[in-house]
Every structure is written in structure tokens, then in C-alpha cells.
């Protein structure tokens, strides 16, 4: 899962001299939240919907009519100049960690200084959604597995014995073992849970997860 595979390539951009009103309309028309600022094909800044909104309500004068007067600033006045970027060869996981730690909405993707794409929170989420086949029909069950490779091997064998196809599998550490999220090509969730339970697997119920 590389950024180059999941980024948006047709990036909508602005230039330094564009007004915030123009930038805001671009965001609205395209239903996006970030605009890389370019000079030629080089990235020089990033302006977000939040930057625009914050600037609009900064140092405003409320008039007697109840109206607020705001300056129609230029992109250059409010843009972020030290933009955190990734390259197409970085992994989607790298992008996720940066977005999460820095609380960002998107990362411009560059080769050198040349803007080649943008990867947003939605792009990263869509990558996981596709990888895990979240939107496909089928059942998703959760199974607790004791530590070591054998319980996982036993689970894979059991599912195969039941003539079910694993569509996707996520294994995550839980307590001292693992929690497996398995997506199976069946719609009989009750039957699968019962058969796995009968085979000695711990298939938790909803109430185990909510306080």
C-alpha cells in the first residue's frame, strides 16, 4: 500500500495571489478541504478550509447592522509555508501516522518540490476500506485466539473445512493473544459463530466490547 497508488492525482491548486473568496469557492465546488499552493509545478504552501475560516473571523468589526466586515485576504497571507509532505514511495501507513500525529487533513505528495498528488484522510480510509473488502457482502466475525501461531493455523483450517472462503482477515494483538476479524463469503453469521464455538474458539459477543 503505497501513497502513489492511493493518492489523488488531479490536484486542485491555487496560487499565492488568489483571494480567499476564490479559494473558498474552489473548495466548495469540489467538495474538498485543502488546496496546495503552487508556483508553476512547485509546491509553495497549503491552504485549508480551516485556515480560511479562522482568518475570516479574525479581527472582524461587527457593524450596527449586525454585519461583520472581513478583509478579502490573499492565499499567501494565510497559507502554511512549512508544509509536511510525503512521496509516492512512502507507505499509506506512514501517511496515516503523520496525519494522526500532526492532526492534519491531508498531505501533498511531492517528488523533490514538484507536486504530484495529495493524500487525504478520506484517501487513507478508502485504502483500508478497499483492502478489507468492507463493502462486500458477507459476514464479519471476531475470534479471540491464544498466543502463538497454532491457534491461527487451526482457525484457517476450520474455516476451510466449513467450505468458507476468507475474503479478508485482520489479526491484532489482544490481551496475551490475538483478536482476529474475519470476513467470510457467507451470510449465515449465526451458523458460523456456532460452528466455531463448537470447535472451541472464543467468539465474543457485542456486550464484551461495550462497557
Amino acid at each position, binding site marked *: 500500500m*503505497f501513497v502513489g497508488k492511493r493518492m489523488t492525482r488531479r490536484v486542485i491548486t491555487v496560487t499565492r495571489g488568489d483571494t480567499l473568496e476564490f479559494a473558498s469557492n474552489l473548495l466548495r465546488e469540489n467538495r474538498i478541504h485543502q488546496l496546495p499552493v503552487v508556483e508553476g509545478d512547485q509546491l509553495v504552501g497549503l491552504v485549508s478550509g480551516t485556515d480560511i475560516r479562522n482568518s475570516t473571523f479574525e479581527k472582524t468589526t461587527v457593524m450596527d447592522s449586525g454585519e461583520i466586515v472581513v*478583509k478579502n485576504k490573499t492565499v499567501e497571507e494565510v497559507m502554511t509555508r512549512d508544509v509536511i509532505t510525503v512521496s509516492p514511495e512512502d507507505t499509506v501507513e506512514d501517511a496515516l501516522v503523520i496525519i494522526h500525529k500532526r492532526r492534519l487533513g491531508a498531505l501533498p505528495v511531492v517528488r523533490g518540490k514538484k507536486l504530484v498528488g495529495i493524500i487525504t484522510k478520506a484517501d487513507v480510509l478508502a485504502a483500508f476500506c478497499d483492502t478489507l473488502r468492507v463493502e462486500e457482502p458477507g459476514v464479519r466475525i471476531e475470534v479471540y485466539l491464544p498466543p502463538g501461531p497454532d491457534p491461527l493455523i487451526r482457525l484457517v483450517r476450520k474455516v476451510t473445512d466449513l467450505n468458507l472462503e476468507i475474503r479478508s482477515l485482520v489479526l491484532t494483538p489482544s490481551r496475551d493473544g490475538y483478536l482476529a476479524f474475519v470476513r467470510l463469503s457467507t451470510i449465515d453469521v449465526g451458523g458460523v459463530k456456532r460452528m466455531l464455538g463448537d470447535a472451541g474458539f472464543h467468539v465474543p459477543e457485542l456486550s464484551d466490547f461495550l462497557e
Partner: protein
Amino acid sequence: MFVGKRMTRRVVTASRGDTLKFASHLLKENRIHQLPVVEDGHLIGFLSGTDIRNSTFEETTVSERGEIAVKNKTVGEVMTREVITVAPWDTIEDALVIILRKRLSALPVVEGKTLVGIITKADLLAAFKDILRIEEAGVRVEVFLPADATSLVQLIRAIAELNLAIRSLILSPSRTGYVAFIRISTIDVASVKKAVRHAGFAVPEVADFLE
């Protein structure tokens, strides 16, 4: 993986009568992008930073001095009334699909009409980061597998024979079978790749993914 486990419980909210300027300050101070609108604990609307920004630049008059006069509207005037919500016992996959399909940034979480939380794109990204242990030290390898469960069992064995523990694993359908993303608690990526290849599996390099 339920919404109730991953949602933000301490929700910052607005009331109908608050001004957009006040709402914008709330967003800025809390570094958030959405405000559920409540009345007596009940969800009655939803206001995003984008709603505020769009409203600001709607029907504006730009004066000769480059200033814009905007009406300081109330939250009630611009909020979304038909809010898409989820319940704490919905899965985060459900929330993910809704957010991506409807191109939303967050979903208020309700029990009946009572607001009990909010789940944002950032919350979902954090959930994936935690589940996959993305921030932990360790190596991540991708392995191509044929479309049969035996190969998965062989791969798990091959890793166990190296005396290495799988931290997390994603198994996802690919064109020819599966691709497995495995996180292992070691820093010796070369040895892992070598051993996995030796066991007969295809371990792609970055170049295979980028045109």
C-alpha cells in the same frame, strides 16, 4: 470494533442561537471541524467548519477597499437538520462506509435522540493505527499468496520457524489470490524477506506497485 469503543465521548456542542463567529471560535480553540447542535441533550442539527465558511462567502458584497460584509448568522440558520447518525453498537466499518459514501467528516453518535458521542475520520484512522500497531517498532512485509488457505498456513509456519511473532496481519484479496501485510517485531527486514521467499512466497518490492 464498535463505534462505542472508538468515539469521542466529550463532545463540544453548539446551540441553535449561537452565532457563527462563536461557533468558529469553538472549532478553532478545540481544533475540531464539527459541532453537533443540541437542545436538552437531544441532537437537533450538525454544523461543520465548511458550513460556516460557505455561509461567510455567500451573498457577500465586496467593498472598494477589498472588504467583505457578511451577516453574522446563527447556528440555527446554517446547520444541517437531517443529520446522518450511528449508534454506539454499530461497527466502525459501518461508520467508515457511511463517511466515505456520503463524503462526510464525522458522524454524531446517538442513543435514541440523545447525543452520546461523535466519531470522526480522525477517530477511524486512529482505530486502524491501533489495530494494526502501525506505530510500533518492527518490520512490515507484503507477501503474495495463491488463493488457497494452505498457503496462509505455510506462511504462518515459515514465520514461526524464524522464532518471530506476528504483531498484526491483514489478508486481502488480490488479482491472483491474496496479499498479506504482516507486521513482525524485529528490525531485520532482509532476513524476514529472505526466509519468506525461501519458503516459496513472492515478496514484492516498491517498484512492483508504482508504474
